[in-house]
């Protein structure tokens, strides 16, 4: 099919890019040419539909998570800039959480961080309380329970996509936590007493993850 010949005047008329004189001349041309007038009207109608049905602003899905993840990623980058070091287990874990199939799990981690900020100093997990959980995936349900034998709070994610077979998953073994109310921060320690992660809130009340380097 032969492509339509370009008519830049028509486009400029439609988009208001003509001078007053050019517009007057083109209006006269439209009156004299019914085919051109019909073409102009069709394009004008199309433009009106596009403006109506392509909104300049849309609701962002999971908007709160959108903001908090930006802050978390910025904090991670700032930490990496400030203290460059070889990749550790925690780096791998953070990278793991950013895999698409674990997006929901990373969200749950944020939800759990909210819990850690609220537990009393001393971290008695027998009295742990998950205030809320949040999953962006429509088919994913989150729940938690306290496992007395393991002395741990377990986060359950039902409905996640199947994890690829080549991925080896393991968790962080958090032995205890300490909360410092003065600086609104909770530090997680491993069994050897080395700090794994510092969790705090930024000025907007969003979770902030700060990695502590056990090797100094």
């Amino acid at each position, binding site marked *: 099919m032969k*492509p*339509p010949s*370009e*008519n*830049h005047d*028509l*486009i*400029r008329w439609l*988009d208001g*890019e003509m001078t007053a004189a050019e517009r007057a001349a083109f209006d006269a041309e439209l009156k004299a040419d019914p085919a051109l007038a019909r073409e102009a*009207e*069709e*394009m004008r*109608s*199309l*433009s009106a*539909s*596009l*403006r*109506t*049905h*392509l*909104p*300049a*602003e*849309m*609701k*962002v*899905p999971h*908007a709160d998570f*959108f*903001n908090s*993840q*930006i*802050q978390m*990623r*910025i904090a991670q*980058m700032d930490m990496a800039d400030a203290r460059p070091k070889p990749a550790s287990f925690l780096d791998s874990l953070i990278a793991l959480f950013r895999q698409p199939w674990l997006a929901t799990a990373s969200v749950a981690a944020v939800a759990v961080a909210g819990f850690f*900020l*609220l537990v009393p100093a001393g971290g008695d997990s027998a009295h742990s309380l998950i205030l809320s959980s949040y999953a962006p995936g*429509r088919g994913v349900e989150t729940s938690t329970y306290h496992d007395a034998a393991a002395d741990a709070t377990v986060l359950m994610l039902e409905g996640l996509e199947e994890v690829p077979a080549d991925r080896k998953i393991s968790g962080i073994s958090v032995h205890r936590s300490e*909360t410092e*109310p003065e600086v*609104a921060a909770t530090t997680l320690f491993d069994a050897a007493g080395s700090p794994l992660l510092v969790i705090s*809130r*930024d*000025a*907007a*009340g*969003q979770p902030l993850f700060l990695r502590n380097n056990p090797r100094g």
Partner: protein
Amino acid sequence: MPAPAATDLGEVSDVDLVKRSQAGDMRAFDTLVTKYRGRIYAMTYHLIQNETEAWDLAQEAFIKAWRALPNFKQDAAFYTWLYRIAHNVTYDWLRKKKIQGDGEFDDERTEHRVAAGAEATPKGDAAPDMALRNAELGQRIQDAIARLSPDHRQVIILREVEGLAYEEIASLVPCSLGTVMSRLFYARKKLQEILQDVYETTL
């Protein structure tokens, strides 16, 4: 533990929010994110027609903006500057997709699935039958936009959604004014062709 006392930043000007952000105030930057996330997400979504990727790219744009803030001299409006970053992030992504040759953005493609969860900001109440017709037309238009090439889709979005002038589009893309007009002409002709049945019944 109570959250720190906070002042409402909603009424603070962009200029002040940017200054605070440049001084390292994440809360001020978070206010800017909240203010512009809907517009940036709409732009990325219209350009790539995929909810998840658009969400990620919009985030990427804000993160790049944060990193570049120290060099932002406020010689342009913050949104204009942010929009350019978001546009470049999105168009780089489109270029990579094109190089990968998955054919997703082929003009000749006849099928496209728009994300089911895509949701436009509601614009008032319409009668149910009218609302349904509007929703159907909106879906048809989204499908038609998705069938344009990235270059054609880009100029249509910049012109019809963002309302940019030809010179602004030429500067942003970048390309010549003639190329802008040419792409707009062919993009509209293509949309007319795809939506022919719609306009046969409405015109």
